[in-house]
Every structure is written in C-alpha cells, then in structure tokens.
C-alpha cells in the first residue's frame, strides 16, 4: 500500500448502463432521437395527407378524443399550433396552464398528470421549464406524451417542422427520408445554443439524414462540449465563415430568462452574429433562413431579413400545424397503426 505509486491503467470491466425504457407508450414523442427514419417518413407523409384533406373529413379522425395541453411556460405559437392541430382532427382539447390553481398551489407534475388521466385525457402535450419533464410525466402516467419543449433539452416537433421546411426548399418536398436525404446540405444553427431545446432536437435529427450541422455562437452561449453531443456536429465560431458554407441558416433567440446571471454585451453580440441583409446577400444569397420564434427584430436578425425573400419563418409556422396534426394522430392511433413507428 504505497500511496506514492503512480497509477497504472488497468483494463477493468464495469457495471453496464441499462438500456432506456422510454418511450413507454408507442404514441409518445419525447425526443427527436426516438424516431426511426421510417417513423419520420411516416409523420412527414401524414402531415401532407392531413394538410390536403377535406377539413370535414379530417375532423372525424379523432372525433371526441380527449387531448390535454399542459403548459408550464407561456407559449403562444406552440400552444396554438398544437391546439389547432388537435382540433382540426376533431379532438377535444383542454388547456391547463401554470396559472391553473392546482399548479399554483404546488401540485406535483406527477399528480397533475394522474389527475388529467383520471379526467379522461388520452394524450398529454407538455411544455415545461424543467429538462426531462416529459420523461417524468410519461413514466408516471404511461399515456402518450408529446414533448412540446422541456427546459433547455428538446422540442422534437420543432425539429420535424424545420425538417419539413428544409425538404420543401431543398428536396422538392420529399417525404421519404434516408441517411442520404440531406447529404451535402450544411445547416448552421446560430446564437444561444446552450439554452436552446430547438438546437438540441435539430442536432439529433438532421445529421441522421446526412446533414452537416454547424453550431455558431460565442463561448458563453456555445460551450466546446456541444460538439460532442453527436456525430455530424461541428463548431464554427466565425459567423461569416458559417454563412458561406450554409444552405440553411437557423437563427436562435437569446433566452434572457435562462441566462442565469450570465452577462452578455448585446452590441458585441450583434456585431458578430446578427444576420443582416448585406451579410446574407453576399455570403449566402441562396440559403433559406429559419427561426423557431419568437423573433426579436433588430437583435439576432434584422427586420429586413425576417421579412425578406430568403426567410421561411412563416412557412415554418404553417408546417408546424401540419406536423403536429400528424404527431397528435400518431399519439392516439399509434397502437392501431401497428405500434411504435
């Protein structure tokens, strides 16, 4: 027992890490990484089919089925999008928000979920400020849970609607995806990556279809270890270099509410990372510009870019409803469609 011996590396075996039991319910969509390529193709195809369907026929698909929207964070876009999607399939929706009395009184997520289930909810759409909340809710209720954003973690329907938007522009609306579908496509995700669930879901999804993902932002908002999050992900700190390589530019909002004391010089940030008309026009004149919203004009991008011809921001919103119709349908009909897609 000589403590001065220099340690010698030995080859040792260790306790294994258990395989994930999630999702418990085949209708759940917790992570963009849970979907197989077939599952993604199926959702894309259903999104188009449902979008083109006669609304009077469409709203019989989930007639009288009960879907709860459980929103712990205020959200206009995502909540309305899910609500419209569920309603246009004929489902009854109930909104429970963080302003609801039970949540204000400190009821746990588990108890709120169990209560919704007892009230007859057949699926729950959850937006929550804690990363992982959707996993907790699913394991406690075993209902189909659609993750509408959990903390800084994931927002899988956003990644799917982004994908639909990208495919419409670059691949003529292809619906069957393969590992080569986005081969040769570079997508830059720019800005507050650290706090972004949109970035994380896209980082999981796009490289599986062959896309190269460049992450771009200052160190405070983009730690080096982000590059280790998965294959196909590279950090490019120089915004202009990133623009030059990109067919898709995804701009993110600075999430002031999650900065947790982090000091950021906004003028410096804009000088380095704001997407302006001249930058876009000279460095990426054919690229499309995406933004998950809400946008802050004059900060991460200029009004001219937001409203300009390369902007696909409003298309994203429209694609959101179509994707969410497909995902809500899948949540309630997953068993009938032969299980996990």
């Amino acid at each position, binding site marked *: *027992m*000589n*403590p*001065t*011996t220099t*340690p*010698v*590396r*030995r080859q*040792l*075996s*260790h*306790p294994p*890490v*258990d395989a*994930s039991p*999630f999702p418990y319910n085949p209708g759940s969509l917790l992570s963009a990484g849970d979907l197989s390529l077939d599952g993604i193709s199926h959702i894309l195809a259903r999104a188009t089919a449902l979008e083109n369907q006669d609304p009077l026929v469409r709203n019989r698909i989930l007639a009288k089925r009960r879907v709860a929207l459980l929103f712990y964070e205020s959200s206009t876009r995502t909540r309305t999008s899910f609500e419209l999607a569920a309603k246009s399939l004929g489902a009854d929706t109930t909104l429970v928000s963080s302003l609801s009395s039970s949540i204000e009184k400190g009821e*746990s*997520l*588990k108890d709120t979920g169990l209560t919704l289930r007892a009230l007859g909810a057949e699926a729950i759409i959850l937006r*929550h400020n*804690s*990363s*992982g*909340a959707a*996993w*907790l809710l699913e394991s*406690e209720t075993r209902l189909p849970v659609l993750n509408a954003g*959990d*903390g*800084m*973690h*994931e927002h899988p329907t956003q990644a799917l609607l982004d994908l639909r938007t990208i495919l419409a522009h670059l691949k003529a609306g292809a619906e069957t995806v393969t590992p080569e579908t986005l081969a040769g496509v570079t997508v830059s995700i720019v800005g507050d990556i*650290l706090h972004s*669930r949109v970035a*994380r879901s896209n980082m999981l999804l796009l490289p599986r279809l062959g896309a190269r993902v460049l992450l771009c932002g200052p160190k405070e908002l983009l*730690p080096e*270890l*982000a590059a*280790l*999050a*998965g294959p196909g992900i590279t950090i490019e700190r120089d915004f202009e270099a990133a623009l030059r390589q990109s067919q898709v530019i995804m701009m993110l909002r600075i999430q002031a509410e999650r900065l*947790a*004391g982090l000091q950021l010089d906004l003028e410096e940030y804009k000088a380095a990372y704001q997407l302006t008309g001249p930058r876009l026009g000279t460095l990426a004149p054919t690229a499309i510009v995406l933004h998950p919203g809400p946008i802050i004009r004059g900060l991460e991008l200029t009004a001219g870019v937001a409203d300009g011809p390369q902007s696909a921001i409003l298309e994203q919103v429209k694609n959101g409803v179509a994707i969410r119709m497909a995902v809500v349908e899948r949540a309630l009909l997953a068993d009938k469609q032969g299980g996990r897609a």
Partner: protein
Amino acid sequence: MTALVIRGGQLLDPAAGVDALKDVLLKDGRVAEIAAPGKLKSANGAEVLDATGLYLAPGLIDMHVHLREPGQGYKETIATGTAAAAAGGFTAVAAMPNTTPVNDSSEITRWMLAPEREAAIRVFPIAAATRGSKGEMLNEYAALKSAGAVALSDDGRPILKDNIMREALTAAARVGLTVIQHAEDTRLTQGGSMNLGPMSFKLGLRGMAAEAESSIVERDIRLVTELRDTRVHLHVAHTSTAAALAAVRQARRNGLRVTCEVAPHHFLLTEEHVGLYNTNAKMCPPLRSAADRDAMIEAILDGVVDAIATDHAPHAVHEKEVEFDNAPNGIIGLETAFGLSLRWLHKEWKLPLGRVLSLLSAQPAALLGMKGRGTLTVGSFADVVVFDPKAEWTYNAREGKSKSRNTPFDGWTMQGKVRWTISEGRIAYNAETA
C-alpha cells in the same frame, strides 16, 4: 450481559494480521477470548452462533451517513437508519450534522446519542464545524467533543472562506478532531444538477464542473501546508474527481495528514447512469465521467483512498418523483456498500478481501480515532460482522430496512451475504429472523 460464542468461522482481522479459523467469545460487550476451534476456555453457558463456512470480521464502519434526525424523520430515523446499517454489516456509523436543526451544539449531539433514539448499532455524531453550518463562525469544538462528536464538518455545504477553514483546521487540531470537508465551490455549481460534460449538455441540465471539487481540495491542502502543524487533519468527503484525488495523492507524498473517502456510487457509476433523468442517480457530488470513475478505482486499489463511505442520504419517494433539477441530492447506501464492494472491488477487480474490510472498518476507525473498534482482539469492542463472502444475492430496495428507497442499485447482484451483525455483544441483525 449474556455471552456469545461464534464458533467455526474464519476470523479475518486485517488490523491484527489474523486470517485463521477461530472461535470467539464475546462477553460484556467486549471480545473476551479468541482460540483455535474448540479450544475456548470460558465459553460455558454462552449462546452459540455456528459460523461454520462463514467469515467473521470487525464490524463495518461508515464514516459518512445522514440519519436525518433530528427533524426529518419522514426520510429516516436514527432507529431505521441504524437498522439498515446493521443489515449492511455495519456496527458503527458517523452521522453528518445537516439535520433540522443543524447539529452544532452539545445538546443535539447528546440528543442523538440518547437511548430513546433506539439505535441498533453505535452512532458517532459529527458536529457542524460552523454555527448552523453557515461557514461564518466556529462552534465550540472542545464542548462538542466531550458531548460525543468524533469529527467536524459542514457537510452538505463546503467551508468556503479561507480564513474560516484555516481557523477550523487549527481549532479542530487543538482538540484532536478531524475536519471533514464537503469540497464543492458552490459559487461554481449554482443551479447545477449533474456533472458538467457532454451528458449535461445533451440533457439540457446545468452542470457541476470537476474543478468545483478539486479547487476546494487544492485550497484546503494549501491551508494545511501553510499551517505547519502535524496535528492538523483534513479529510475529504465523498471524493469524486480524478483531479481531487491527484491533489490528495500529492499532499500525502508531501507528508501531510490529508485523507479521503470514496462512495460506492463514485467507483461504480458514471454520468451515463443518469440515463433519462433518473433522480436516483442524482447526488452531490454528482456521478462523474468514466475517467473520474476509473481514477477512483485506481486510487482504491493503490491505497490512496483511506475509506469507503456511503454518504447514505435518504429521501422520501415523493421527493424524488419530481423533475430532475428539482429533486434533492443523495441516495441510500448502507445496505449495498458491502455487497457492491465485494462484488466489484474484490471479485471483479481483485482487491484482497482483507483490504476491502480495512477500507470499510479498520481505516475509518483509525481516521476518526475510534479506539477498540475496527479490530477483533481481546479487549476490543464486540463489534462483529459474520458473513458468507461467496454468496450472491439480489438487492430489493422495497425489502430494505431504511425508510427510504432512493437507490440506483435496486435489482443489482450483490456478493457477500451478512449472516449476523453483532454490536457490542448484542445481535443487531440476524439474516434468519430479519
């Protein structure tokens, strides 16, 4: 008090250098006689425990547990926590002071030691190093020591300020006590709920950097160095990073009295075991990288680690059934530490049985100055664990003696089954009647 004879077992007492078949007579709470099988002189009338085919060793000692009393009896009580300890082969535990209120007074220390607490085994309170564990003002160490405190710590929190830590080390040394540091620079870990690394990024959780631990250990070692007083003893609680261990290793090389403990979860698990937000894999310090985990194993095998301690931290089920970032830190460990140590350190990684036992008994006894414990010689306390080192079993947290079930080891295969735990001559745990 009745007498007990343990007959036919293999006595393994590393501190005394004994590894032989022996019959042992326990009387009046002490070891009265040790003899070759069948050769005890004064065993008449004693109750006989047949240990044929089993090992007997000095009872295990856990120098880092949270028994939650006073104040949080819904998580654990001294009675249930010590029952869990006895089931795990322990005959003594050192209880951390982060109770409600904090154990920073002789009154609370004495309250914990009162017979009304119905402890199944010996409890040794560790008193708070500072008033309310707030890190601002030192407590009365001499009074705490005479009330029964065996060490000083603000565990759950670090002693952050240089001058307070320096004063604590000096004042503790004066009365012959150890300062146990929870090494975490809380200025760097705010909002953190797991190790800072690729996993925390992927899971969208705020991370706790390895440097938050190692920087405090390095600072403390610097203070010990500057004090130039051989009585000063710094003990690093639940060491979890390679960098902190390297600092301890270097301090030892420099002849300083700096010791450390490692918890089973830190030599077995990594941040990968957090999985998808398993709150039973959330503790402080957090599960670290594979490289850190490997460094724990190396340091245990090569002798830099002085003790295995569980950091047994019970929490009620409903407290852990919440969002990961809202869940409290800590897991229980008293009923799994021995089984995991034998399964992995001994069986898998070939650490001799005697060394495993030393880390779980003789060495922590020495660190805390527990005289007459951690060894089984005539006259020492009759603290004994009788066990079958080869038996495999499966841990079921629901059947545990602890009030809580917050463990990542539920359903794991363990090795080494405790048959009896004897605390000062009384049977504190009997597997047949448990």
